[in-house]
């Protein structure tokens, strides 16, 4: 990424958030910001980076917004807006009031993640508005065509405008529920990058990085929210092991075989610090429990499986949690105990095509000495997974039986 691109990325969310408050329209703010970015792409390389790139962009974008309103066809409707906008003097430093900027970005996050928008639209808008990713980049990351992603974003913005989704941070009882939704969007972005069901590896890493950046932003904007810190911890601790999950030949490496020197010590430290912060604020919520599990996986003396199993048992129940719980029990108390826990999951028709279930089943059967059962389960898991690295590993384990 060039210095110019980095500067654009860094200031996109802040400037857009400020503009939306000033012009009162998501679309207009975004168009004006695009104009300003285009102008910067010409003048910054020529004249050098301005001292205050964010302020430069905000001022330029506001001028463009006024131009666009003037040129707009529905004059009678836009006259009031123009008058309001011109009242705010352009010479002032647009970022003079720090409080307002914090509020602007929070407002923007809560708008992009509003539950009245479809989940895929929330993800796309958040990456677009806060992350500053282009439509093409988001389309590539989610393996859809650029026109499809473009339409998705246009539709979402039209709904925000037509249904009047407020540009506001919810208060009181609504805040807890809505914050959960915002964290869910960020975690989904992270998982999309981490699970790597397909696509270019680089783009995928970028999604994880972007989710962590958004997580840090949320912690900075809402430092008293324990689950925001816990989600950041969970993502940092998981991402810390990214380079050890695949070896030089591109093969999948299981946790117990991972080269610890390839774990990212800075990310581990940042994750542990964020987790302590979350736990100091309140008793652990779902993200804090998952972050604690991720932290225990990286214990210096190897994962304390009994403790990990207890933490899984404390999480809100779901098939994925039940499967991970069984796997941890398998390491803590032996394969037989785990196979018993797996029985109801294997009988559930909804999980029939869930590859990780059959992979775990195969591992447990192998460790219990049932090679024939293990071979069948490995074959089933390999047939169901769409990830080529994982499939190769499952086939290798079957061959090694």
């Amino acid at each position, binding site marked *: 990424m060039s210095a110019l691109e980095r500067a654009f990325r860094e200031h996109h969310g802040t400037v857009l958030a400020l503009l939306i408050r000033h012009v009162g329209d998501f679309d207009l703010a975004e168009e004006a910001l695009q104009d300003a970015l285009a102008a910067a792409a010409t003048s910054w390389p020529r004249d050098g980076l301005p001292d205050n790139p964010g302020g430069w962009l905000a001022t330029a974008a506001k001028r463009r917004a006024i131009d666009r309103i003037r040129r*707009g*066809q*529905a004059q009678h*409707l836009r006259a009031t807006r123009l008058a309001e906008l011109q009242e705010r003097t352009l010479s002032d430093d647009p970022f003079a009031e720090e409080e307002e900027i914090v509020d602007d970005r929070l407002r923007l996050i809560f708008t992009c993640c*509003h539950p*009245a928008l479809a989940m895929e639209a929330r993800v796309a808008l958040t990456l677009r508005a806060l992350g500053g990713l282009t439509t093409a980049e988001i389309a590539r990351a989610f393996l859809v065509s650029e026109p499809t992603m473009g339409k998705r974003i246009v539709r979402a913005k039209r709904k925000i405008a*037509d*249904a*009047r*989704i*407020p540009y*506001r941070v*919810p208060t009181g009882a*609504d805040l807890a529920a809505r914050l959960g939704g915002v964290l869910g969007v960020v975690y989904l972005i992270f998982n999309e990058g981490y699970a790597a069901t397909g696509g270019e590896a680089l783009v995928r890493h970028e999604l994880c990085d972007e989710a962590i950046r958004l997580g840090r932003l949320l912690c900075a904007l809402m430092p008293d929210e324990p689950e925001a810190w816990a989600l950041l911890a969970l993502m940092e601790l998981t991402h810390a092991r990214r380079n050890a999950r695949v070896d030089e030949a591109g093969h999948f490496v299981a946790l117990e075989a991972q080269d610890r020197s390839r774990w990212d010590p800075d990310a581990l430290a940042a994750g542990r610090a964020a987790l302590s912060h979350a736990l100091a604020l309140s008793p652990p919520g779902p993200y804090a429990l998952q972050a604690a599990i991720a932290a225990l996986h990286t214990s210096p003396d190897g994962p304390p499986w009994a403790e990990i199993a207890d933490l899984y048992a404390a999480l809100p129940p779901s098939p994925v949690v039940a499967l991970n719980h069984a796997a941890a029990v398998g390491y803590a108390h032996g394969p037989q105990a785990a196979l018993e826990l797996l029985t109801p999951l294997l009988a559930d028709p909804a999980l029939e095509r869930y590859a990780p279930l059959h992979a775990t089943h195969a591992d447990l059967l192998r460790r219990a000495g049932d090679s024939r059962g293990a071979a069948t389960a490995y074959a089933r898991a390999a047939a169901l997974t769409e990830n080529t690295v994982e499939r190769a590993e499952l086939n290798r384990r079957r061959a090694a039986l």
Partner: protein
Amino acid sequence: MPQYMALLYNEPGDEATERERWALLPRWNDVANRLRDAGVLVANAALHDTVAATTIRVREDQLQLSDGPFATTKEILAGYFLLDCADLDEAIGWARQLPIAEYGSVELRPVFAPEDLPAG
């Protein structure tokens, strides 16, 4: 002030279910009164069953009438509330209090305002 049309949908129930729903009348009156007191309520009504519906079309200047609703689905339009709300969150805040949200559904549709009309 933007207006929202809250369209109320439910599946018609058997006699026992209908009796249970009529028993909710005090709750409906309570929400309607609070909407009125808050200055939010523009209009509201319950609709007769789709048995009483007539669908009208004019094609090539010919009036065509058909018995029954426009679309035959399980859920039918049972009534509506037209509300003055500042934004979608306020409208959702009211809509969730309508008893039908618990056994049917409420579709919120923003009403076209003059300034929403296409320019030019």
